[in-house]
């Protein structure tokens, strides 16, 4: 089963003739199953062989991004032409991009000049219209015209942004000490600013002043405020003449500008047809050269040496690709492809499909598995949604969730193409997990006999007799036992006074049983790890005592629970039994504690010889603790000493340590630190012994969450919806339904499901995985062009 252990990996060496290097990397990148090792980790980026090529690719990408920006500015959508009319090599493309860029920049510059001229003319035209208005009243009074001997007032007119007008006026006033006169009038609507091309609100101004010095000052202030100045003839006839000229020039300029923009858009859209193709090509080339930079160059510079991890199963495909790439580039030498032996830990690689990927992701969020250790994902695929459903169990909520999951799964092709919002994307990626969670929730909902907290009678009416829920006038009625409901919880319990004591007892015991079962599964998973590495020492000193410890304490508790359920009339207090098992293990019936020297708790005796059996269990549980603690470090020490004396040699297997152990720090040949090993073993033992208690208690969250879910949905149903129905008022009923529906969706379906999800996650990460999962490997990260060229990857460049 490929998901159970990670793929076997092999470190291989490629010796590639330099002329075939590019094609070889391209072919390997298309397969995407080689993780290249960096052969020159000490060299910085620009000391590497293909630094120039990478740099060139980056430059080309910059140009392509520039084209992209220009297209966005021009409002064009880059559209890929279905069939590329010609395939460029990188050099040709570089030249082409160079030409295109300079052409585009020239066009853009010209257009920019034209646009600036155009908007300046527009401003001038407005000045001519508006400023004329300023002068007309003055002309009417005729003071300037009539007395040529008087002091000639100078004036400057122009346009400035409206929001700067007040401060402009203030500065002018201060600079000229009030010896000026400013008139301004806002232009309706926004006009284009010649300098920036943005649309802004502007105002036409005219400043009158006296004297050359004031003029120089005002000119400077105008410059500082970005106020454009325009000539304005005083003579009325010249004004009209100028206005006509400006209008004519504006018309011409508009035409030229339009033509120029058309020309630019045509150039851009012709780029747009190839833009995506080119970008892909350049990014591919960049990735290839980047990879080539990790290769080491032979002294003769005739061939490149690369090392990398590959899955053993992919060897034939890789060999085939190497051969073909070599042939295609007509290299003089063949490519050498050979495995190398190494003692480095290989990467962990699980080929997943769309269903298993999400669960593998859940496990790897905790830690990437060590190479070839058993993968928790296999059981997590079922137990994760199942434990979720134990907490979330409700038929109606399960059906709602199933509908959502089916929608996502059914439309996965369509939805997969669109980039979703972050939360939507998470739900989409986890769609198969949600699907399984929903299916199990429906099943557990049937067992809990709850549909939106309403009991269903699908498996027959209640087996209890002697009470009638419809007869509410009879006072408290106790029902009479009449048999077991065949599937799930008897519907009579819903809403009774004793519902909670019954369900709490049931769900608490169920949580413990499920927890012990899952933890036992975890311990047996560690057995699989030990068997795989032939680590018999750990089987004897870890696996067996762990099974005995957990089994003799909590396994015994589980058996007692089942016995209590199945024995008629059993009223044993299991808390009492468990506690007194340690305080007085042989005395199961509290002998001599009752009145007259009789047993104090005879009901706690469930079977003959319980006292003796409990003594035995406590003894083996206590005995297993030192077995976990001491022998393993001592034996490892002796083995190491024996090896130091050269008493025996062991073949260095390629993936096993000398002593067959997976533990790093007992590497035979790298020295052996006894105290460190002992401390490690102590921590491990204490963690397990305390964990056996605390982890079992931790599974009670299954009960707590399930209780919370059932109570919340019952409150929403009874207090909101049923209360509204009871009023018999249609409006109240509609409002009540709306409130109930939104509470069901918002609180139960979203918040409660999230909390159940997180608790299921914790139970798997901590309680289950800490029994066997080391999770200290590193993930296989192959050089894959498909991965690099994914559209979303470009955002991270």
């Amino acid at each position, binding site marked *: 089963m*490929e998901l159970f252990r990670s793929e076997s990996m092999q470190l291989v060496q490629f010796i590639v003739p330099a002329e075939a290097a590019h094609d070889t990397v391209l072919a390997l990148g298309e397969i995407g199953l080689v993780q290249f090792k960096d052969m020159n980790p000490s060299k910085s980026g620009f000391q590497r062989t293909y630094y120039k090529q990478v740099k060139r690719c980056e430059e080309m990408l910059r140009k392509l991004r520039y084209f992209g920006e220009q297209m966005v500015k021009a409002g064009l959508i880059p559209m890929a032409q279905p069939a590329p009319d010609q395939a460029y090599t990188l050099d040709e493309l570089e030249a082409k991009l160079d030409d295109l860029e300079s052409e585009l920049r020239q066009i853009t510059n010209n257009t920019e000049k034209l646009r600036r001229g155009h908007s300046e003319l527009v401003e001038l035209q407005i000045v001519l219209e508006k400023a004329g208005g300023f002068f007309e009243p003055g002309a009417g009074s005729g003071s300037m015209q009539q007395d040529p001997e008087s002091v000639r007032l100078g004036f400057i007119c122009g346009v400035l942004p409206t929001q700067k007008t007040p401060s402009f006026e203030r500065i002018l006033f201060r600079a000229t000490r009030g010896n000026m006169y400013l008139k301004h009038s806002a232009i309706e609507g926004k006009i284009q600013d010649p300098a920036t091309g943005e649309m802004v609100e502007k105002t036409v101004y005219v400043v009158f002043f006296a004297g050359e010095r004031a003029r120089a000052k005002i000119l400077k202030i105008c410059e500082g405020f970005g106020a454009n100045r325009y000539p304005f003839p005083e003579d009325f006839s010249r004004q009209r003449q100028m206005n006509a000229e400006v209008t004519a020039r504006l018309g011409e300029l508009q035409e030229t500008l339009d033509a120029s923009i058309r020309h630019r858009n045509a150039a851009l859209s012709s780029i747009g047809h190839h833009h995506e193709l080119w970008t892909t090509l350049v990014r591919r080339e960049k990735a290839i050269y980047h990879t080539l930079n990790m290769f080491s160059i032979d002294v003769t510079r005739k061939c490149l040496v690369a090392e990398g991890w590959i899955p053993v199963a992919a060897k034939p495909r890789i060999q085939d690709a190497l051969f073909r790439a070599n042939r295609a580039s007509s290299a003089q030498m063949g490519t050498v492809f050979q495995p190398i032996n190494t003692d480095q830990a290989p990467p962990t690689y699980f080929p997943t499909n769309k269903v298993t990927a999400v669960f593998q992701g859940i496990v790897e969020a905790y830690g990437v598995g060590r190479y070839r250790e058993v993968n928790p994902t296999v059981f997590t695929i*079922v137990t994760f949604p199942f434990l979720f459903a134990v907490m979330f169990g409700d038929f109606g909520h399960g059906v709602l969730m199933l509908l959502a999951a089916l929608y996502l799964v059914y439309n996965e092709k369509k939805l997969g193409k669109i980039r979703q919002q972050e939360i939507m994307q998470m739900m989409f990626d986890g769609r198969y997990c949600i699907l399984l969670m929903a299916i199990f929730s429906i099943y557990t909902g049937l067992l809990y006999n709850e549909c939106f907290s309403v009991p269903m009678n699908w498996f027959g009416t209640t087996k209890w007799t002697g009470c009638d829920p419809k007869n509410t006038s009879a006072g408290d009625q106790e*029902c009479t*036992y009449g048999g077991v409901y065949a*599937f799930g919880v008897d519907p009579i319990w819903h809403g009774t006074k004793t519902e909670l004591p019954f369900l709490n007892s*049931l769900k608490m015991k169920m949580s413990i049983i499920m927890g012990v079962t899952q933890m036992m599964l975890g311990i047996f998973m560690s057995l699989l790890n030990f068997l795989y590495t032939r680590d018999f020492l750990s089987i004897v000193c870890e696996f067996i005592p762990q099974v005995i410890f957990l089994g003799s304490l909590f396994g015994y508790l589980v058996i007692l629970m089942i016995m209590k*359920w199945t024995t008629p*009339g059993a009223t044993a207090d299991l808390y009492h039994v468990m506690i007194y098992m340690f305080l007085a293990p042989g005395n199961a019936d509290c002998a001599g504690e009752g009145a007259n020297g009789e047993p104090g708790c005879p009901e706690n005796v469930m079977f003959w010889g319980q006292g003796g059996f409990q003594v035995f269990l406590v003894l083996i549980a206590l005995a297993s603790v030192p077995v976990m603690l001491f022998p393993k470090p001592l034996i490892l020490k002796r083995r190491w000493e024996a090896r130091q004396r050269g008493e025996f040699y062991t073949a260095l297997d390629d993936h096993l340590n000398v002593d067959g152990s997976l533990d790093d720090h007992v590497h035979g040949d790298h020295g052996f630190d006894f105290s460190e090993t002992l401390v490690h073993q102590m921590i491990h033992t204490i963690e397990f012994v305390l964990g056996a208690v605390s982890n079992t208690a931790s599974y009670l969250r299954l009960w707590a969450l399930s209780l919370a879910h059932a109570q919340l949905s019952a409150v929403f149903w009874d207090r909101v919806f049923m209360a509204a129905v009871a009023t018999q008022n249609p409006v109240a009923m509609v409002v009540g339904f709306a409130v109930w529906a939104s509470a069901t969706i918002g609180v139960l379906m979203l918040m409660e499901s999230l909390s159940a999800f997180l608790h299921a996650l914790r139970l798997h990460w901590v309680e289950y995985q800490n029994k066997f999962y080391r999770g200290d490997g590193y993930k296989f990260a192959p050089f894959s062009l498909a991965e690099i060229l994914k559209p979303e990857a470009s955002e991270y460049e």
Partner: protein
Amino acid sequence: MGGTIFWGTTFFIALEVGFYFFVNTTWKAGDRQLQHLLFATSVFCCWMMWAIIYMAQMNPLVVPVLSGPE
């Protein structure tokens, strides 16, 4: 009563046998181990929960008390 446990368990075993053949006919050989394990685990989980809830009701210590008028 023991009869229901027996027949219920038989039902779940039959379900698993059914899934066994379902997996064999749905997936191609060499690719089935994971599916077999997943279905078996699911059936086991479902059986366990059903059995727990059934057994918990076999000898009830608490009886349902319907509350009368308040």
